[in-house]
């Protein structure tokens, strides 16, 4: 199932775009609180953020598998924008028949324990509840929320966070992770619709996990690149440190973990079109678990081969490693997803283990 030519071209151009515009300077400024509007505009122009939205609703009707590949490129370049969140938010809103825009969007809740709800209030609705660690919660132009309604899950699309009580927060990479609290906030009827097309909370969580797996795969590729360059430049004891077997062996492990992460993430993205929902979930769980486990080992080695320089703010390695330490815990850590895998295979039983693996 080779990548389609147009997808490859798109990814190449995304790669160049990020190379030019997601520079360390831009990332540093984003971390200090300035939203990289220019970077966002350039990404929006490619059509990627809304690509999965049906053409009738302003998107390109693209396959999730392809846009997930774009997230690997974004992860590789530590792009400090809510690309994954916008893709997911646009999909949820469009499926529910709500408006989508090219502006940066985000989605909430992103954590299992958070709960939002809506209740009827005349012709409109009242929104209540709290969503924690919402990516770019304060900066996103449009919020797409999933809330419990009287008849089931509802999608609420809000412009900006004016109506929310916002507590700013950050992940280890300095990316915004804000808490939004709504206290019986009035919402007009046009901004609320039932979830449709399977674009519900559970699916948002799964796609969020998969998005992070893809981004981690990209970030690991970058960390590997950075380490490869460094060990061949750095001289100690009169030679490049890459000439030491101890360093070579470590680099081999780093490359192996990176390759496994990419393979697992791609398998998860392909699984989105798997006909069996339980196997689909299993493969997404494998993607998040395996990339998270790989991230732990990969970040350790990437830092070890760098020595002190890798531990500085000035050097770029930390742009990848701090993201890996953040993303592996977002949308469910390895422990959570691995427990899901274990629950699925144990419920199916020992004799079904091999048939399950080969059917997935």
């Amino acid at each position, binding site marked *: 199932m080779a990548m389609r030519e147009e997808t490859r071209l798109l990814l190449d151009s995304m*790669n160049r775009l990020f190379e030019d515009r997601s520079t360390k300077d831009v990332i540093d400024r984003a971390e200090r609180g300035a939203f990289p509007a220019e970077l966002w505009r350039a990404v929006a122009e490619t059509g990627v953020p809304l690509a999965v939205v049906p053409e009738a609703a302003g998107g390109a009707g693209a396959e999730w598998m392809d846009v997930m590949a774009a997230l690997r490129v974004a992860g590789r370049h530590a792009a400090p924008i809510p690309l994954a969140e916008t893709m997911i938010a646009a999909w949820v809103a469009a499926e529910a028949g709500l408006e989508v825009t090219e502006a940066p969007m985000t989605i909430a809740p992103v954590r299992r324990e958070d709960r939002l709800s809506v209740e009827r209030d005349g012709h409109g609705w009242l929104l209540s509840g709290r969503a924690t660690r919402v990516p770019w919660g304060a900066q996103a132009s449009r919020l797409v929320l999933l809330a419990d309604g009287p008849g089931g899950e509802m999608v609420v699309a809000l412009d900006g966070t004016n109506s929310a009580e916002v507590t700013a927060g950050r992940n280890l990479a300095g990316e915004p992770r804000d808490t939004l609290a709504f206290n019986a906030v009035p919402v007009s009827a046009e901004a609320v619709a039932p979830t449709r097309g399977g674009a519900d909370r559970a699916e948002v969580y799964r796609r969020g996990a998969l998005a992070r797996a893809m981004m981690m795969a990209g970030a690991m590729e*970058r960390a590997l690149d950075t380490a490869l360059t460094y060990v061949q430049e750095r001289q100690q004891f009169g030679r490049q440190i890459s000439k030491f077997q101890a360093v070579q062996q470590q680099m*081999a492990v780093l*490359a192996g973990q990176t*390759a496994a992460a*990419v393979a697992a993430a*791609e398998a998860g993205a392909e699984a989105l079109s798997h006909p069996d929902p339980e196997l689909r979930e299993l493969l997404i769980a494998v993607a998040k678990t395996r990339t998270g*486990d790989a991230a732990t080992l990969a970040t350790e080695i990437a830092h070890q081969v760098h020595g002190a320089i890798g531990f500085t703010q000035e050097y770029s390695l930390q742009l990848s490693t701090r993201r890996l330490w953040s993303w592996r815990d977002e949308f469910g850590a390895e422990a959570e997803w691995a427990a899901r895998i274990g629950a699925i295979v144990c419920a199916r039983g*020992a004799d079904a283990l091999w048939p399950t693996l080969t059917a997935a």
Partner: protein
Amino acid sequence: MTFQAFRFDPVELPPEAQRLRHEVRDFLDARRDKLEPIRGGRDRTFSREMAERGWIGMTWPKKYGGHERSALERYVLIEEMLAAGAPLGFHYTADRQSGPNILRFGSEAQRERFIPAITRAEISFCIGMSEPGSGSDLAGTRTRAVKVDGGYRVNGSKLWTSNAHQSDWMILFCKMAREGEEVDRHAGATQFLVDLKSPGIEIRPVLNLLGEHHFNEVFLTDLFVPQDCLLGEEGSGWKQVTSELGFERSAPDRFLVLFKLLKEMVRVAGSNPDRATAAAIGRMVAQLATLRRMSLSIAGMLQAGEQPLNEAAVVKDLGTRYEQDLPIVARTLFPAEPDIGAADAYVALLASSIMNAPRLSIQGGTREILRGIIARGLGLR
């Protein structure tokens, strides 16, 4: 584009591979009594029955008795057999590497002589690479061949030769030398097809730590090898053995040796384990699922005529690490005093897994050698 170290392109199994999977499962179902927990044994009848179905030399040319099926179909066959613990011992070495080696480098006469016989499970092969003074360092091979009338005279010895005592032929790796001279470390590497019934061959068992007889030491004393048993060319042995090791390392048998322990762990965990137990098992399943996908990519590359030596080294390194972690996780989750003879299947499997684990990252290239290959693939050496 940034540097992409290794490629594991997605592969979709064609419908004929899926059909084959079911045929293989039915075949195995009917022979459950022959399946073994860890190392599938050696069963000539089983191999003959596979041969009758065209499952030996599946991808080889029809004119030599092969079946010209795809590398992906072969992958499915092998993974099903390995996961079930099928006794492939009689033919597997020949199917995996000796046959492909002969097809690639052998003469027309050699292909006609050996390949059809392999596909009919009539002859079995062993690997003559390691020596007492040359394990990972194959270039240090001391076994020497001297040109004589009508062929070669070989002296030396091979060690760790699995199943030499039960095999018919060995592909011998040695060095060309002149009478009275030492062998050259870097030149003269040559492979021969050696009939193990020839005079001048003595095979002595080396029991492994489980007390089993797989290994042998093979002494070659003034062994005469006829000219028509030179494989490839004199001095081309290094290239040939590298290719042969590529076949060896590309197979899915580098992460399915202890599969039954994982299966038994799932059984012991029961249908509704606690979260920590589920997570520990889930992590291992995540690794196995990923290894399978990567291994399938390798089969796809083989099918496309590529030689994915670096990728094969990556999968073997990751695969053996995962398998060696299995007993570690097992005894954390479900402690038991390991006992090979235990009636309890889990306890017995745990015991043999612990005892077999060390060999996994040694056979077919040690972990350190593989990581060296990967580092070379990264451009570091």
